[in-house]
């Protein structure tokens, strides 16, 4: 998994574009309610946010293919992410 922090675009390791992350509400991850090991609920929009820290590229692509509007959380410190510019 790769992310460009400037454009907030997320790609697979092979370079395939997955999604551009955008949230106009700016709710912090810690302010969201934990729903499962890798998901939280945003109180503002009531959507489920998926933590990408434990996802591989296949899981990520499948998730976005099933729901292109799915919300993701990427932490720049997570081990499965590479930062690109």
């Amino acid at each position, binding site marked *: 998994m790769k992310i460009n922090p400037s454009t907030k675009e997320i790609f697979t390791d092979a370079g395939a574009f997955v999604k*551009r992350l*955008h949230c106009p509400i700016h*709710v912090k*991850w810690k302010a969201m309610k934990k729903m499962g090991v890798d998901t939280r609920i945003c109180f503002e929009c009531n959507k489920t946010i998926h933590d990408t820290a434990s996802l591989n590229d296949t899981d990520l692509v499948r998730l976005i293919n099933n729901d292109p509007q799915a*919300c*993701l*959380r*990427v*932490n720049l*410190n997570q081990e499965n992410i590479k930062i690109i510019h």
Partner: protein
Amino acid sequence: MLFKRLLDIFRTKPNSQTKKGEITCTECGLVYDNTLGFIKREANECPDCQYIKILTDKSFDEMSDGLRVIRTIRGETAIKAAKDMGLKLLELRAEVSDEFKIKYKKIKHRITGEIITIGDFRADSRYSWKYKTLVDWTSKNPSKFFSPYAAYVIPKDLKKGELVLINDVITNHVSGRWNQGDVYRLSKSEATWTGEYFNIDVSSYAIGDIIG
């Protein structure tokens, strides 16, 4: 009883007795009174005294964001005092990793003499012709501990699996990295008590989250 124990700590230093009922810490001039608790008589107090105060401060916020807050104490004096008070401690070695760094550049206005410190490469060009460089880009580790001894005060009724808030994390965790090279230390975090140690949830207060 608490007063007597703390009194014993301060009594180890000569001339610490001032007037009746008051003890002065020779380290920082803090005056302790057996009816009023700590009274700050000087602008500054030594870290030892600050951490002893954490142990005895009745106004300490026990809850925050719905989570129990864990007290962190640092220094041998506070740890000894906590043990004397019969508190349960999780003692840890406190050493800041060399990994953490922030960069800065110090510049001075050529006309007004104003000195400012900048931390972003992008701000550099904005000031280039108006300012003279005093300290060129350099990095420093902003985290320093006054003592290598530190401990969490474990509430006696803390249950295994309980989520808590730690405002002063002892162990080293990266809170965030900036693509300009700065690496930040996690100082505050949610954590889960395993029964033996705290499992720090770095993501709870990490910087660098992108959501969308």
